[in-house]
C-alpha cells in the first residue's frame, strides 16, 4: 500500500497543478482575485509531493523488493543510511526529488509572496504550476518510481559502490535544491514579463530565492568536487566533465543574476538583462538535468541512456525555455529602463561583472556542447578538456577576481572620489606575493603565479568595505559580501598552490620499500586483506614521515559483491599545510603493488574557499530575510494600496 499511496499522491498533485494553471488563465483574463485559492492549491500540492517522497523513502528503508526501483537499486545487506540515500541515487527517485522540491518551493512562494502585485504573483504561481505539470507528466508517464514487480524478488541488485558514500546523501539533494530554487526566479521573471511589472519590488521578492539557490549550488559544487577528489582516487578536484560543467553553468548564471538583481533592487535599472539572466539560470539547470538524466554525453555521471526519457525531457526543456525566450523577445521592448548611471559607478562595475561571468558561461557552454555540435555537422569525434577550459576561462576568471576587489568600493550612480587610493595596500601585498613566487620558484607557470598574486591582493581588497566604518554596524549583507569575496581569494590561493607545488609519485612497491613524495618519506609496511559489511578489500599499511613522527595511512582497494565492482578508497592525511593523498592499485605479476602518492600543499584551501563563499551567501540571505520579515513589513496602508491597485 505504501507505494500506491505515493503514486496516488503524485497523481493528485498533478491534478492540482493543472487546476492552478487554469486558475491563472481565468484570473489574468477576467481579473478575478484568485490568490487565496491558488495559494491553498500550491500548498496542498507541495504537501502531496512530500507525502509521495516520504513513501519512496519508506519503501527503500523497508527494503521492499516488490517495488522495481528498490530491487534495481538496493540490497538488504546495505548499511541503513545508504538504503535511504539509495532512494535518490537513481533516475526515478532523483526525478521525484526534483519535482518534490519544485512543488514545495511553489508552496513557499504562495505563502511568502506579498511583495509583488497580485497579477505578477498569480502569473508566477501559474508559471510554477506549468513547470511542475511537465515534470509530473514525466514521472507518471515515463519514470514511475513506484512500479511493482510480481513476483517479488528475494533480494535487490544493490547500489553502485561509488555512490555508497556519505557524499551521496548530501551532494545530489543540495544541487537539486539549488537547481530548483532557480525555478522560482524563472517563474517570477516569466510572471513579471507577462504583466510588465519588472521593478525593484520584484527584485526584492526574487532576491532571497536567487541567493538561497546560489548558496546551495555553491555548496553542492564544492562538496561534489571534494567527493570526486577523494572517492575517484585521481587526485584532482575538477575535471571539466560535462556534468560538472552542467552544475557550473547554472552557478555562473546565478552568480551574475545575484549581482544584477541588486542593481534592479537598488536602482531599478538593468531590467531586461536581469529577466534574461533569471530565465537563463533556470534554463541551465534544466540543461544540466537533461544532460545527466538522458546520459547523452560521455561522462562519469552518465547513468543510463534511455532515448524515450531523453526525448521527453528535451521536449519539456524546449517548451519551457522556448516559451520564456519568446515571451522575453516580445515583452522586453516594453520595459522602461530605470535610473541612469554614469560610467564610473557601482552599476557599471556590476555590468562588467555580469559581462565577464556571461562570457565565462559562454566559454563553458560552448566547450561542453562543441563536441556534440561538431559530430552532428561533420561526423568527426573530438573531446574538449582541461587545456581549453583552463586556457580560456582561467584568465577571464583571474581578471574578474581583480575587479572583485574594486567593484564594492565604488558608489552607486556616480563616483567622484579616487577609487584606486584605498587599493594601495592590497596592490602592495599582491606585488609582494609575485616577488616571493619569482624568488622561490622562477620556473612557475604563468596562471599559478598570477593566481598567487591576485589571491594575495584580493584577500586584502575584499575586506576594504569594512574598513573605515564600525564593522559591527555594517549590514549583514555587507559582511556576507566581504566573506564571500574573501573566500574567492582563499579558493584561488588553493588552486594556485595545487597547480604549482603538487608532487606526484607513481611506483611499484613491495612491503618494506620506501618512496619519496614532496617532503615525505612513505614506507609500504604491509598489505593485508580486510572486510566490511558488504565488501572485502586489500589494505595497505603506509608509514609516512617528514621528520616529525610517523603517521599511518591505510588506502584500500575494495571489492563490492552486489553489484560486483572494484573501487579504490584513497587514504588522505590533512596537515595544516596540505594533504598527503595515497591510493593503492593492482598487484603486478611479480607480487609488487602499484602505489600512487601525492603531496598537495594547501589544496584544502580550495574547498575552504568554497565554504566561505557559501557562508558569505548565507549571511547575506539572513540579513535580507531579517529585513524582509522584521524591519520592512508593509504597513496596512501599503498593503491595501497594493491589493486594490
Amino acid at each position, binding site marked *: 500500500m505504501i507505494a500506491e499511496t505515493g503514486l496516488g499522491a503524485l497523481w493528485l498533485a498533478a491534478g492540482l497543478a493543472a487546476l492552478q494553471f487554469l486558475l491563472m488563465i481565468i484570473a489574468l483574463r477576467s481579473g478575478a482575485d484568485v490568490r487565496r485559492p491558488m495559494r491553498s492549491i500550491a500548498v496542498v500540492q507541495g504537501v502531496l509531493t512530500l507525502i509521495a517522497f516520504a513513501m519512496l523513502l519508506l519503501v527503500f528503508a523497508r527494503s521492499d523488493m516488490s517495488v522495481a526501483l528498490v530491487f534495481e537499486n538496493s540490497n538488504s545487506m546495505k548499511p541503513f543510511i545508504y538504503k535511504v540515500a539509495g532512494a535518490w541515487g537513481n533516475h526515478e527517485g532523483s526525478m521525484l526529488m526534483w519535482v518534490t522540491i519544485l512543488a514545495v518551493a511553489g508552496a513557499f512562494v504562495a505563502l511568502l509572496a506579498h511583495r509583488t502585485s497580485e497579477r505578477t504573483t498569480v502569473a508566477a504561481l501559474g508559471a510554477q504550476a506549468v513547470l511542475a505539470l511537465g515534470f509530473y507528466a514525466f514521472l507518471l508517464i515515463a519514470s514511475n518510481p513506484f512500479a511493482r514487480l510480481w513476483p517479488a524478488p528475494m533480494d535487490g541488485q544493490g547500489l553502485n559502490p561509488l555512490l555508497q558514500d556519505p557524499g551521496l546523501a548530501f551532494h545530489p539533494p543540495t544541487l537539486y535544491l539549488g537547481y530548483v530554487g532557480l525555478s522560482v526566479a524563472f517563474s517570477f521573471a516569466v510572471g513579471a514579463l507577462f504583466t510588465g511589472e519588472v521593478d525593484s519590488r520584484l527584485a526584492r521578492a526574487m532576491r532571497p530565492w536567487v541567493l538561497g539557490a546560489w548558496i546551495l549550488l555553491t555548496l553542492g559544487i564544492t562538496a561534489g568536487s571534494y567527493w570526486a577528489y577523494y572517492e575517484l582516487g585521481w587526485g584532482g578536484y575538477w575535471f571539466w566533465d560535462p556534468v560538472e560543467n552542467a552544475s557550473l553553468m547554472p552557478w555562473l548564471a546565478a552568480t551574475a543574476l545575484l549581482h544584477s538583481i541588486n542593481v534592479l533592487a537598488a536602482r531599478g535599472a538593468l531590467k*531586461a538583462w536581469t529577466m*534574461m539572466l533569471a530565465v*537563463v539560470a533556470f534554463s541551465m539547470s534544466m*540543461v544540466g538535468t*537533461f544532460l545527466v538524466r*538522458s546520459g*547523452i554525453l560521455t561522462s562519469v555521471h552518465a547513468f543510463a*541512456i534511455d*532515448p524515450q526519457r*531523453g*526525448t521527453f525531457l*528535451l521536449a519539456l*526543456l*524546449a517548451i519551457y*525555455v*522556448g516559451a520564456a*525566450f*519568446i515571451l*522575453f*523577445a516580445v515583452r*522586453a*521592448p516594453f520595459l522602461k529602463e530605470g535610473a541612469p548611471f554614469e560610467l564610473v559607478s557601482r552599476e557599471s562595475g556590476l555590468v562588467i561583472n555580469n559581462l565577464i561571468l556571461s562570457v565565462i558561461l559562454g566559454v563553458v557552454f560552448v566547450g561542453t*556542447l562543441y563536441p*556534440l*555540435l561538431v*559530430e*552532428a555537422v561533420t561526423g568527426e*569525434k573530438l573531446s574538449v578538456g582541461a587545456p581549453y577550459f583552463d586556457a580560456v576561462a582561467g584568465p577571464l576568471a583571474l581578471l574578474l577576481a581583480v575587479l572583485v576587489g574594486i567593484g564594492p568600493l565604488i558608489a552607486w550612480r556616480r563616483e567622484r572620489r579616487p577609487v584606486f587610493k584605498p587599493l594601495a595596500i592590497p596592490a602592495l601585498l599582491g606585488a609582494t606575493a609575485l616577488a616571493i613566487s619569482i624568488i622561490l620558484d622562477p620556473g612557475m607557470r604563468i596562471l599559478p603565479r598570477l593566481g598567487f598574486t591576485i589571491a594575495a591582493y584580493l584577500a586584502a581588497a575584499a575586506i576594504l568595505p569594512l574598513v573605515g566604518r564600525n564593522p559591527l554596524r555594517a549590514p549583514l549583507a555587507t559582511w556576507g559580501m566581504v566573506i564571500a569575496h574573501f573566500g574567492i581569494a582563499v579558493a584561488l590561493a588553493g588552486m594556485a598552490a595545487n597547480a604549482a607545488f603538487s608532487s606526484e609519485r607513481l611506483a611499484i612497491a613491495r612491503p618494506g620499500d620506501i618512496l619519496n613524495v614532496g617532503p615525505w618519506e612513505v614506507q609500504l609496511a604491509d598489505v593485508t586483506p580486510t572486510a566490511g559489511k558488504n565488501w572485502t578489500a586489500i589494505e595497505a599499511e603506509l608509514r609516512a614521515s617528514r621528520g616529525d613522527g610517523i603517521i599511518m595511512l591505510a588506502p584500500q582497494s575494495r571489492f563490492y559483491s552486489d553489484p560486483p565492482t572494484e573501487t579504490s578508497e584513497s587514504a588522505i592525511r590533512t596537515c595544516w599545510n596540505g594533504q598527503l593523498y595515497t591510493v593503492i592499485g593492482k598487484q603486478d605479476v611479480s607480487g609488487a603493488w602499484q602505489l600512487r602518492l601525492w603531496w598537495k600543499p594547501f589544496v584544502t584551501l580550495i574547498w575552504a574557499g568554497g565554504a566561505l563563499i557559501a557562508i558569505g551567501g548565507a549571511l547575506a540571505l539572513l540579513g535580507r530575510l531579517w529585513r524582509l520579515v522584521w524591519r520592512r513589513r508593509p504597513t496596512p496602508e501599503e498593503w491595501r494600496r497594493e491589493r486594490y491597485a
Partner: protein
Amino acid sequence: MSRAFRFAPIGVLLLIIAALVWRLATPKDNNVHSTMVGKPVPAFDLPSIVPNKPALSSADVATGQPHLVNIFASWCVPCITEVKVLKALQGRGVHIDGIAVRDRPADLADFLARNGDPYERIGSDSQSDVQISLGSSGVPESFIVDGKGVIRFQQIGAIEASDVPMILSKLEQAR
C-alpha cells in the same frame, strides 16, 4: 534594445535543441574509426617475436595480393575466439599477417600453440606504435590491405564466423 539581442537566444536554443535531437535520434557509435582507410599503410618494420615466424614490415603487406592484417595479443580474450575464424579464412586462401601488441614471446608461443596459428608473419609492436599509426584503438582489429599497400577496410572488434562472407567480399574487392 536591439531586435538581434532579443531574438538571438531563441536562435541559440533552436541550434542546441537540433543538435540534441540529432544525438538522441542517432545511435551513439563509440568506435574510433581510422582515418587511414583509403591511404597507404604507413611505413613500419617490426621485429619477429616467436621463433620460425618471420617478422613483419610494411613492404610485406604490399605484395600484389590483398592481405588481412590482424592486430591482436595473447592477453586479449576475444582474440582467442577470433583465431578460429581466422583459421577458416586461412583455409580459403587468405593471406593473414599479425601485429602482436605489447606481447611477450613465451605468452605468444603458448597462445598460438593452444588456439592455432593462422599467421604468415607476426611483428612485435611492443609499444603500440604501429597500432596507433594505423589508427587502431584496441584489440582485436583487422585491416584489409590491397596489393598496392593501400588500406581498404577496417574491422573493429573480433571477426565473427558470420562476418566471413563480408570479409571475403572485401578481400575480393581489394584484389
